């Protein structure tokens, strides 16, 4: 049985539509990440699951119950907020116990359950303190403890790590992943950080302008982006795009951009002669061509080199467009050197120039 089902869900504020006819089903024990640029409606969708926003149309059910008109407290969800949202006037103990008190859980049991949760999250020394006396990471841990203690059907995380510094963020990300492994509660996690999405998610729901662009496992979304937006949004450094015209050359297909012609077998794609398309290739998929190689080469003069540590990002111009290649630092060319990069056809992506949809055969 699916833990969460959204069918034809709409959300609008007056005339402004935020979520449009959204359909999604989330399986039990699944870790689903809503990913998208700011303003794509991902947080709104999460808040609709939590019951903090009304649903303008459609139906949301959690654990088989339609929750459209249920109060947040009756939905069996627990939420972790971006700014922690701890109760500033209560001790950490009371913060964690507040939800249980509402459920009239006996005092002894509250003490025992808070103890168990605080031990798991390493909060034992802080139970008597107020939230303001804790660091950001500790506060976030309290927020997670407050969510955990209710043993909810669904965990909702609203950009929980974006207020933490980079190092702590990595640490907490690992902690959340561990927590999910041990608790195995259905989790919906909102973020705009693709690294978080890639590392945590069982499935990523990529949203733009209130619509789902693609749903899939991180590998699927990275390797088989369904359209230009997904291809451009996922992956750092960003995918290179080159406008091409499709042509035919005997058995092979040609992709022509100004002076450059790429010849491919095109088996993986649905191609039509004369069609305009966008060729996509990820910077790490570009490899330095051997001096004798010819055909399917991207050539130019390196005009910017960014050192990343193990790798370096080489940027050059091809037909007026910037192309980047991620190469091992030790094989990094000098600035203003002539560079030649080849690619394997299997790493190629092709999109329809008009609709932006992938031309890959399903």
């Amino acid at each position, binding site marked *: 049985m699916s833990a969460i089902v959204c069918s034809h869900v709409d959300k609008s504020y007056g005339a402004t539509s935020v979520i449009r006819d959204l359909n999604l089903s989330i399986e039990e024990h699944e870790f689903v990440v809503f990913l998208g640029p700011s303003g794509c409606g991902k947080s709104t969708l999460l808040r609709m699951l*939590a*019951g*903090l926003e009304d649903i303008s149309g459609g139906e949301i059910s959690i654990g088989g119950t339609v929750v459209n008109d249920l*109060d*947040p*407290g*009756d939905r069996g*969800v*627990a*939420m972790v*907020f*971006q*700014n922690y*949202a*701890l*109760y*500033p*006037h209560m*001790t950490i103990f009371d913060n964690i116990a*507040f*939800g249980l008190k*509402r*459920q009239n859980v006996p005092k002894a049991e509250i003490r025992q359950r808070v103890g168990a949760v605080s031990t798991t999250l390493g909060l034992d020394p802080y139970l*008597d*303190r*107020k939230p*303001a*006396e804790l660091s950001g990471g500790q506060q976030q841990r309290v927020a997670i403890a*407050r969510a955990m203690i*209710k043993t909810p059907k669904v965990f909702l995380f609203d950009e929980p790590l974006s207020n933490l510094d980079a190092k702590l963020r990595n640490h907490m990300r690992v902690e959340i992943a561990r927590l999910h492994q041990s608790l195995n509660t259905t989790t919906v996690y909102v973020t705009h950080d693709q690294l978080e999405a890639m590392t945590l998610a069982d499935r990523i729901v990529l949203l733009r302008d209130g619509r789902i662009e693609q749903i899939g496992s991180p590998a699927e979304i990275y390797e088989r982006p369904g359209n230009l937006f997904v291809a451009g949004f996922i992956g750092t450094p960003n995918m290179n795009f080159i406008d091409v015209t499709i042509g035919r050359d005997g058995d092979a297909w040609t992709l022509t951009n100004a002076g450059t012609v790429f010849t491919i077998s095109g088996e993986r794609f649905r191609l039509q002669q004369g069609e305009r398309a966008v060729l996509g290739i990820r910077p790490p998929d570009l490899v330095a061509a051997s001096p004798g190689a010819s055909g399917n080469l991207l050539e130019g003069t390196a005009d910017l080199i960014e050192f990343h540590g193990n790798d370096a990002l080489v940027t050059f111009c091809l037909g007026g467009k910037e192309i980047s290649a991620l190469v091992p630092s030790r094989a990094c060319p000098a600035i203003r050197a002539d560079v030649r990069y080849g690619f394997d056809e299997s790493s190629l992506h092709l999109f329809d120039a008009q609709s932006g949809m992938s031309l890959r055969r399903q």
Partner: protein
Amino acid sequence: MRRPRTGVGRLLGKAVLAFAGFMAVFPLLWTALNSLKNNVDIITRVPRVVFTPTLANISYILGRDSVLTGLYNSVVACGVAVLVGVVLGLPAAYAVARYPNRWAGDIQFFVLSLRFLPPVAVAIPLMVIWLQVGLYDTLAALIVTYSLLTISVIMWLAIPAFQAVPKEVEEAAFVDGYGAYSVFWRIALPVAARSLAGAVAFSFVLVWNEFLIALMLSSSNAKTLPIVASELSQQGMNVPWGILNASVVLLSLPPLLFLGVLSGFLNSVFRQKKT
């Protein structure tokens, strides 16, 4: 940029602060001293700091029925009005802050507009109304009138205080299973308590010191302390300075006590636990 502080600058800053403090505190101290002096010690060319203190002024003040009645009227009228202001004003402010509708802006403006009219403009119609109703010169009329003031002041100051409570904190309580009323009681009120207490104290001081409306609405029975105190100076040519000062001291004690109790309460609530 933080500029390094020179010794001279710091000294000058402290001097300015000390001067400002002196300006604020000295008149109060002098009034308190004068309340303990005989009239001859007050009306001297050279101000006297050393004198034989007397309690005559204070005992005279406390011995007069009019003063005690005034004190009683003031305490009851202001106390009840502040209570009404708290009971009605705080929930109203919370509703405007958290559940704004299209009238919210107008409500806030209307509440503020009660404060920009000159008090006389309000006092005369009010006097007519209370005369018609037959409640002129009663505590009830004063309480209702003062409640208008306390509700408006408390609302005006409490709306931003409630808005400053992070919305997510209240939402977290909703997710924890609490309803709107519990969230108001258990989250919004305690989190905003510090600013709310300031609003309540301010409204108390405002009605306690109120003079003109009290003057218009009372003739004998419902006179408040400021009216009674002002009447003490109208006893012929010889102004009884000592008595006047003593009445001022009496007048300023309740607000000071009120603020003292309030700030003590706040300190105890917000004292950080030392571990």
